[in-house]
């Protein structure tokens, strides 16, 4: 058996009830109280009137949406999606290209190092030529990494335009 609501409890619930905002169970309890209590029925009518007045007020003053706005927004969003996806692909391509270049440079540098300039054995005295060759390989590798970093971060315009141009035509 559900406990009937008191008039004090009704006072707190009626505004929300008038807007249809109560849970089903609470709604049923309020409805049954309204049917038996003249005072709360009058209160309910007053809250309903306020709710209707406010809802009507705002509904009639709702600004008209410009024609085609939703379609225009859809177009703009789709354009943005395409651009961002192109950008992602460009970055991936640039990164791949740079990795390949850096690897090629590193391999070339290694190939240039004569076999007798290989790293000194633990007990053998260090050769100054070997140290210089390995130093240059390190410099090349660092240079490659720095260039990759700058290209990916700054997104150089030329390469971007090259890819964008191709993408736009398709």
């Amino acid at each position: 058996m559900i406990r009937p609501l008191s008039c004090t409890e009704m006072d707190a619930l009626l505004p929300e009830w008038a807007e249809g905002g109560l849970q089903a169970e609470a709604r049923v309890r309020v409805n049954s109280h309204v049917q038996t209590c003249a005072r709360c029925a009058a209160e309910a009518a007053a809250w309903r009137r306020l709710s209707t007045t406010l809802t009507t007020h705002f509904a009639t003053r709702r600004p008209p949406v410009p024609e085609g706005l939703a379609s225009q927004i859809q177009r703009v969003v789709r354009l943005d999606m395409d651009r961002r996806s192109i950008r992602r692909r460009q970055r991936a391509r640039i990164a791949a290209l740079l990795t390949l270049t850096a690897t090629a440079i590193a391999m070339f540098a290694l190939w240039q190092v004569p076999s007798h300039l290989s790293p000194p054995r633990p007990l053998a005295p260090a050769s100054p030529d070997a140290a210089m060759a390995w130093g240059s390989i390190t410099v090349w590798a660092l240079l490659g990494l720095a260039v990759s970093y700058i290209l990916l971060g700054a997104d150089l315009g030329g390469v971007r335009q090259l890819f964008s141009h191709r993408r736009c035509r398709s």
Partner: protein
Amino acid sequence: MARARQGDADAYAALVKRYTPDLYAFLAARVPRPVVADLAQETWLNAWRAIGSFRGLCSFRTWLYRIGLNLASRELKRRKRAAPWSDELAHAEPAQALASERIETADEHQELQRLMASLPAIDCELIHLLYRDQLSYEEISHLMGMPLGTVKVRLHRARQRLRAQLEERWEAKSR
């Protein structure tokens, strides 16, 4: 919604179609009319870029309105105007009343607008969110960053005040 979050353009287009009229009305109450369409577009763009971060803790509409509200505040600051809810009725252009409305009804609307302007700014904003934007209490709470209990109490107080003032006028009219 789930498909839109995964980057489905068609699903997102459906959301745009569904919520643009509501978003437009929401923004039109906050910024001057000429910039509303641009702001609506920017809101949808920002929402699209951030949709991966939408976790569904609040409704999509609330999340979208939050983005719109931030953009509207930024726009107003840029224009060196007051905060959106302190001066909303002053700068929002009133929508054209329907031609079929009677003069009496138009007077009632003006009266109601005056009454709402006399409420504290936050209460007025809450009334607008509830009746104009048709948000639920939970949605208002999320949007305004206010506890649910506070929203309910403030709304109750504001409605009581409006009701008291309106009833005086209704009684005076019926005499």
